[in-house]
């Protein structure tokens, strides 16, 4: 506050803080707190989606190489041609290869780290094995068809491999949960911003009342609060994005081991725009009930 005895002239370049319209009010402690809380929530949303992105890449990485093995006991060897035909008739199977007992035994020896098993004995005990390559593991009844073909002819499917091949379903479920969590967090963020702006509205009730008495349009009265809400959300979005980098850098080695290469830039716009959208929604909720007895009409 300046109180001079000499006249204070208005300088040529002056930027008074006039309310209303597109003028955003100055930030106070409440707004800063709201930004911090919304930033934490947006960080959580970003981390969830980074996790989904990582899981998708990881699953996608090994799912391309996955094969399903169908076993037929040597006692049922007579069923082999029928089983082969039944499996070849399934359209989602792109290739079918019979693995020779020698190859299977060699692979098993390697897997058991050359445990010194008798190769001949191993070959005689191993079942007849078909290796199936799939062209569409997401097909709805594929694994049921394979299981059905195998059991009809005395065979069995490696169920662990089936579970692995169906991992895309887990990812889809995880994505569904991620959307759900994002929605809940978005509502919480909108509530925080709405509450903050409601306090601002109460603090500026006299100003709003006066502007209406002077004939201000409703958009003119409400626009600063909507802009403020968008700004709060947008700033929180950028801050959350920046704070996700340490998470990415901290897990870098682990991600590299899983052959996952996450793209942080993909999250920048969603976090920024998502934050602004949530802020605008919160502001709309807060200003929806701004009423005064002097409102025109």
């Amino acid at each position, binding site marked *: 506050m300046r*109180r*001079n005895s000499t*006249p204070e*002239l208005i300088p040529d370049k002056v930027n008074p803080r006039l309310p209303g319209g597109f003028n955003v009010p100055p930030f106070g402690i409440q707004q800063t707190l709201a930004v911090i809380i919304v930033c934490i929530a947006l960080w959580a949303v970003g981390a969830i989606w980074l996790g989904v992105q990582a899981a998708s890449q990881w699953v996608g990485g090994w799912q391309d190489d996955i094969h399903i093995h169908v076993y037929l006991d040597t006692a049922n060897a007579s069923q082999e041609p029928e089983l082969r035909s039944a499996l070849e008739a399934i359209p989602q199977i792109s290739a079918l290869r019979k693995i020779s007992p020698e190859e299977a035994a060699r692979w098993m020896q390697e897997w058991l780290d050359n445990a010194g098993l008798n190769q001949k004995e191993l070959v005689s005990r191993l079942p007849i094995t078909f290796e199936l390559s799939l062209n569409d593991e997401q097909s709805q009844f594929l694994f049921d068809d394979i299981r059905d073909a195998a059991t009809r002819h005395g065979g069995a499917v490696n169920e662990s491999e089936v579970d692995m091949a169906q991992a895309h379903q887990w990812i889809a479920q995880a994505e569904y949960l991620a959307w759900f969590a994002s929605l809940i967090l978005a509502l919480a963020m909108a509530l925080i911003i709405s509450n903050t702006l409601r306090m601002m509205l109460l603090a500026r009730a006299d100003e709003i009342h006066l502007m209406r008495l002077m*004939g201000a349009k409703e958009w003119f009265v409400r626009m600063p609060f909507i802009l403020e809400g968008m700004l709060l959300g947008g700033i929180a979005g950028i801050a959350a994005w920046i704070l996700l980098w340490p998470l990415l850098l901290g897990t870098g080695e682990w991600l590299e081991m899983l052959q996952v290469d996450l793209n942080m830039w993909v999250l920048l716009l969603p976090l920024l725009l998502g934050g602004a959208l949530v802020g605008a929604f919160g502001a709309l909720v807060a200003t929806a009930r701004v009423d005064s007895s*002097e409102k025109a*009409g």
Partner: protein
Amino acid sequence: MQQLMLRYPTGKVALSGVTLDIHQGQFVYLIGESGAGKSSLMKMLYGGVRPSSGQLSVQQIDMREAGEARIREIRQRTGIIFQDHKLLFARTVFENVALPLRVQGWKTERLIPRVRKVLEYVGLADRLWSYPQALSGGEQQRVAIARAMTANPSIIIADEPTGNLDIETASRVLDYLMDLNRQGATVIMATHDLHLLESHPGRVIQLHAGSLAGGDL
């Protein structure tokens, strides 16, 4: 206005059967005891409350039927002065006075000379960047007058603007309002300070219990 009646939702009848005309350029005093209906009548003039029955036209706009846009139009052409000033204490004198222009969409560069001129007129050019709480009661009322006149309104409604002021300051406030009236604005002022009527004559309308008491004085 004709047979104007105002009943609040609580059932209280604030005005009843008020018929009078106020022409552009008049200086009108509304007098009467507390609760006589002065403030209610003035609120109706800027659309703060709507008449319950009767007819009220302000600048050819029917205030009973007017939509929000027309009410806003009236308010933009009306300067309102309150007894308690209703200044924004978190904003400077300059910002307070610039508010009506800002509401009307004036750009900052355009409103600066206007605000400067108005504040010079009320003798507060040296208090541009002061906050209202640093001003005396008389100075605050002058800021309120400056705010009311800054958009060059055709009607000035003043609700007991001298209520909290000493005689000398009140007289100065009246001088400003008289001057604005001479420049063409219609001034409607509610007051209890009947002694001011001698030094600053004008048309007097007396209200009593929501009705005109003995017509114009």
